[in-house]
């Protein structure tokens, strides 16, 4: 999968743009994400229902994966069953 790919959750409204990726399966709400929207949403896994936030970046512990949430939803992101965490921008004191 190329950086820049947009993935859609099959279990909620979440959409992400892939910034960095390894070879694992990217999931949201417990279900693998895909480039197309599903005809019908799959059930949301209780363990992966903390929600995603628009504009947040989500990463794994090794920094192999980085996803930008471009549409929020009720699911939460994971790779091969391991939850991703948010990565904060390091805001500059308004230099632009």
């Amino acid at each position, binding site marked *: 999968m190329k950086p820049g790919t947009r993935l859609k959750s099959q279990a909620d409204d979440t959409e992400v743009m892939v910034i960095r990726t390894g070879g694992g399966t990217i999931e949201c709400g417990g279900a693998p994400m895909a480039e197309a929207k599903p005809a019908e949403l799959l059930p949301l896994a209780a363990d992966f229902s903390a929600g995603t936030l628009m504009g947040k970046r989500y990463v794994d512990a090794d920094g192999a994966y980085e996803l930008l949430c471009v549409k929020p939803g009720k699911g939460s992101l994971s790779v091969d069953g391991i939850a991703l965490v948010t990565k904060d921008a390091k805001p*500059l004191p308004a*230099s*632009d």
Partner: protein
Amino acid sequence: MNIALLLEMAAEAAPDRVGLVCDGKRWTYGELLSAARGAFELIVESDAQYVALLDESSEAALIAVFGAALAGVPYCPLNYRLPDADLAALLGRIAPALVIGDEERVIRVAGDQGHTIMAREEFAQKVQEIVPGEDTRETDAGEGVAIQLFTSGTTAAPKAAILRHSNLLGYILGTVEFASADEDDAALVVVPPYHIAGISALLSSIYAQRKIVMLPSFTPEAWLALVAEERITNAFVVPTMLARIVDAIERGTPAQVSSLRAVAYGGGKMPLEVIHKALELFPTSGFTNAYGLTETSSTVALLGPDEHRAALASDDPKVRARLTSVGKPIPTVELEIRGEDGQVLPVGEAGEIYVRGDQVSGEYKEKSALDAEGWFPTRDAGYMDEEGYLFLSGRADDVIVRGGENMSPGEIEDVLLTHPAIADACACAVPSIEWGEAVGVAVVTREGHEQPDEDELKELIRGRLRSSRVPERIAFVAELPYNEMGKLLRRKVKDVLAA
């Protein structure tokens, strides 16, 4: 990955929020995105290889940068202050382009180059009328060129610096939190559109959802009036602009600047006297000195508001000196000072500044300047103090090499500027039979002061620096030559000193 994503996200999250104010007209994020989509159709239809802008800042600049991004065509804002012949040569290098702006001038100087030419008003009108088709873009890895900016080219033909979508997105995503601005926040953009700071200001404000207020043509009076009228919270200026604003306030121009939380500056050396006065005249504003280059997608180091106030209040000369530094590297880039042999230099030693990071393109259309490990040699000279503060000492090419000893013009100038009768100073190399090069300085006497004695200035430098820094030649001049961005034109001073 495409920088259009920044506007798409802002429009998705807050379509009805005002994103841009220009010439009294207010544009919502929804309207801006729709206009950018209209521009996309217009660009594709015109078969343009580039989208060029020959104009002051206006809504057209913002619509063009995102429209070009959607169309996958580089956006290339041009310096409208260039003489006709130079402008024609640059336009020739990007033909065929969709050129927005000074229609009459483009027809006159480059009418035969196959461009599609459109005045600002016509462009703004058309992009609003077009109904965009369906979005059929494919996955984009971000390797396309988003921006092409011609360097000023003081020595040879201007180089075409290119910034890829991935560079600019790396910078914005790494340093701006999405939708982090308050509804009342407003950024005043007055830097010309062909300057990297003008472009990064647009991208970061859109992503932060901070309302952009544009002032197409700078005067200190118009700037102050707009700050009061639009309750501006953030502003970026180049040093000459801040000097003129300070001067206007001192001459009694009404100033209501209490809304201004953040004033950032960069693009040239800030005279110590100006920043001192500005800190006094804007007691509630946080000042930030930003250092960056076109090739690094803008800021790579900065001196923040607290550091400004701490330096001003300190009795420690080392802390006070930080007002002349550009602060510390930002967390998302790496920065090193290297000697001529490429080795990293110890603290306090001046050498060439190297940077590395996602935002660093270091690339020209002709070739990349990155080394094998991805480091970009900036050609800027500087050193770091023991606390990690970066001090610039001119361009690497400006370093004075006297009998094998490297000397930075900056350290000599800083000492000269401590003399009460010296308002401005420039040090550069003058030819020397004995040493190859020696130090020459041009100084401006402060109004109301007697011209100081040459020996007095030599003694001042001998007392503070090594004797090798003592100038062999001193010229007293009425003023030093600066370009419109506040950059000192050392080459011109060199010519005066060599004469």
